[in-house]
């Protein structure tokens, strides 16, 4: 028998529980990515001489595989006395990796702000921090929200990589079920379906959000 429904029902609760870990990793990773990305983008504008360093750093992070970065953080950090558990290492690696992508999104958002806004802020003698907080960021963030949403979905789809350092998220749980029961069809397919469902739902949400934001800017 290729597909066993009773086995499916039996493993469903276990996988549902593991899905919570995947979602936790996604949310924590995205918080790091979104905030660190914003910091990188703001520092780049506020402190001109960092521009070159940050773009090389972003290029370095984006050009190397996330899996190797996860291994690097998980295996190399302890050598410097910084022992972290697998979940933290994975979340940090994913967060830093996507921070590089997010910082480019923010940068594009800041570039879209009209020069006159900066000049007006200078004319009003606002500090750099006030200019960012009250003028630039409120205008730059809304249009880039959908782009950030796309990276949230992309980041979510990378969480199975955490199974490589034995974090008990969806993929690792499915692998364990598979190796214990010698049935891979149901667990692997369920994991795939779960990701598909989440991606389709979030894609629809992002589209709706995009429409909402467009309506606001048009008005």
């Amino acid at each position, binding site marked *: 028998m290729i597909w066993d429904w009773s086995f499916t029902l039996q493993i469903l609760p276990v996988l549902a529980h593991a899905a919570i870990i995947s979602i936790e990793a996604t949310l924590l990773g995205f918080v790091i990515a979104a905030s660190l990305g914003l910091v990188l983008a703001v520092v780049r504008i506020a402190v001109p001489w960092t521009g070159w360093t940050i773009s090389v750093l972003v290029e370095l992070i984006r*050009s190397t*595989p996330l*899996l190797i970065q996860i291994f690097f953080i998980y295996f*190399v950090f302890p050598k410097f006395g910084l022992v972290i558990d697998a979940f933290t290492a994975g979340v940090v690696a994913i967060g830093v990796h996507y921070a590089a992508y997010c910082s480019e999104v923010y940068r594009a958002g800041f570039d879209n702000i009209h020069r006159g806004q900066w000049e007006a802020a200078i004319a009003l003698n606002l500090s750099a921090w006030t200019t960012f907080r009250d003028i630039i960021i409120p205008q730059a963030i809304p249009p880039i929200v959908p782009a950030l949403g796309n990276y949230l979905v992309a980041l979510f789809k990378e969480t199975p990589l955490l199974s490589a350092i034995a974090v008990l998220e969806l993929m690792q749980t499915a692998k364990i079920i598979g190796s214990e029961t010698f049935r891979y069809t149901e667990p692997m397919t369920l994991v*795939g379906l779960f*990701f598909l469902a989440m991606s389709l739902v979030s894609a629809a949400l992002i589209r709706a959000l995009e429409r909402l934001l467009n309506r606001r800017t048009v008005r």
Partner: protein
Amino acid sequence: MGIRTLVAMLVVALAVIGVLATQASYRLFLPGLLQGALLTIEIAVIGSLLAIVMGVLAALARMYGPAPLRWLATVYVEIFRGTSALVQLFWLFFVLPQFGVTLNAFLVAVLALGLNVGAYGSEVVRGAIQSVARGQWEAGTALNMSRSQMLRRIILPQAFIAMIPPWGNLFIELLKATALVSLITLTDLAFKAQQMNQTTFKTIPIFTLVLLMYLAMSLVISIGMRLLERRASLGLARGRAA
């Protein structure tokens, strides 16, 4: 980032690998890692070719195909973009044999990565074709060309230029995704790194070398795509200037 900066980064990366290789603790790992890198390159190249074929076919099917073909292409794109690359890799590796289809790990790797990136690529192809001005189609109609003639002679050559930068990004994504094949027992660069790490515990040199090697490979792709773009848009730029 300009092409000069990319070349400079590549030179620095290769120089650092070269300098590290002269040191006793690093020299030990280089031959094994290079061997792994060779498999990584093989998978990346064959996977990229498959991705291009799938991307173009799926895009054309979705835009101009008859209804059943259009649905099939849409299902393909949504499934491979919606599920995770690692899940696809494991599904082909572990589940397909239970349906009586056993593929070797190399074939699974190339298929999973090629199909995954191809699904993203089809959106790139679609976007590029749609970005060609409507007037170009109208001119083709005025010249009494068939739709396939217009596509082949007018639309695709122009869309091709618009496709180059996003495809470059996808090739880099594919190169990075090849690291996943180490998890289905292929002895690529990532696998060699883990293997050596487990036997020697020389974590820092091994992973530093590996990161630099992936970086160098990505930069080669970036630089290659920039050169291709420059070459492909040469006639166009000249036309615009005149």
